[in-house]
């Protein structure tokens, strides 16, 4: 059997997109660092950072994988009345709303279990749900746009959509979390 995978070839494809993703990652780190003092006062919210980033990435990659499969099958079109697009958008929003509500509930539980200072159950749920909802809308919009654009320009959307969406989610996830936190607290 011939050797299909070669270190050099994989590195050549992956490194440019990983470097781009790193730049976006640093950008979200800068947002995090800007609100650092605020965060260190509220460890309960600091605790939500990895899970907000992670959930944003999960939702984006699931939607991305589904849209790219549909593009490859040729059964989806970029218009508001497309049934597959509509179902995917609706399902992502439903899953997003429930998951980010769960982030608030479990977040509060973890604060109690591990003795972190928390802004209270209602505020935790409010902050995670509202920022999660905003993030979900951003994810839906950017994922669909990137998948269709990649496909339109002749790139395999599987290679481009997921790494770009997860990185973009990081920046907006942290921005949404702090934006909403500042309004609520």
């Amino acid at each position, binding site marked *: *059997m011939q*050797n*299909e*995978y*070669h*270190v050099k070839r*994989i*590195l050549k494809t*992956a*490194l440019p997109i*990983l470097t781009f*993703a*790193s730049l976006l*990652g*640093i950008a979200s*780190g*800068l947002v*995090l*660092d800007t609100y*650092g003092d605020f965060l*260190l006062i509220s460890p309960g919210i*600091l*605790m*939500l*950072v*990895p*899970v907000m*980033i*992670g*959930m944003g*990435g*999960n*939702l984006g*990659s699931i939607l991305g994988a*589904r849209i790219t499969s*549909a593009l490859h*099958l040729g*059964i989806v079109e970029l218009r508001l009345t497309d*049934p*597959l697009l509509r*179902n995917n958008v*609706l*399902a*992502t929003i*439903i*899953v997003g709303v*429930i*998951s980010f509500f*769960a*982030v608030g509930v*479990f*977040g509060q539980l*973890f604060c109690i279990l*591990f003795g972190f200072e928390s802004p209270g159950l209602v505020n935790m749920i409010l902050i995670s749900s509202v920022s999660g909802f905003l993030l979900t809308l951003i994810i839906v919009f950017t994922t669909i746009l990137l998948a269709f654009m990649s496909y339109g320009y002749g790139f395999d959307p599987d290679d481009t959509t*997921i*790494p770009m969406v*997860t*990185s973009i989610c*990081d920046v907006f996830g*942290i921005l949404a979390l702090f934006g909403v936190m500042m309004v609520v607290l």
Partner: protein
Amino acid sequence: MPEGDQYLKKYAGVSSIVKQTLPLLVICVILGLFAGVVLGGMKASLEALPGLLVLVPAILDTRGNIFGAFGSRLGSALHQGLILPELKRDDNLMHSIAAALGEGVIISIVLAVIAHYVILALGRDSIGIIPLTAISLIAGVVSGIVLTGLIVLLAFAGYKKGIDPDNITGPIATTAGDVLAMVALFMAAEIVLGVI
């Protein structure tokens, strides 16, 4: 278009998408919070090591990107029969692993260097390029090695039991990646704090 019709009937319904994704995502929420607990517990290190917080999202994110892609390659290779689910020397497997670990090393260094200069350019405090690179590299390599082993073992075990590795390697890479990267970052910060 028969495949298209079949896909629309089988996978495109709102309730089927919700049912297949929600349980896994709720598990991811709980595991992700453990990563948060580690971050919350790092308050003291974060205060002692200015600049470290800038690296956190980037390191978590690259775990998902590098090892998500590694898992995806492994899944495709298993489906195509290019890699057999057996733990023995195999060129395709070795090259895939080497590429993932190599990416991890290069990106860890790139991240620390970019972060350091961006922090300085913005007139903020950085602990310095050497400590920052050391933390990023230790955390990246330690979490990368554990994550590679975990993904290979779970993808092989799943494949042998009839579970599609494509369904499990992505969430494993992002969620286990977050937890492992936070623990490794915590360790690396402690080591560097001990040295300087």
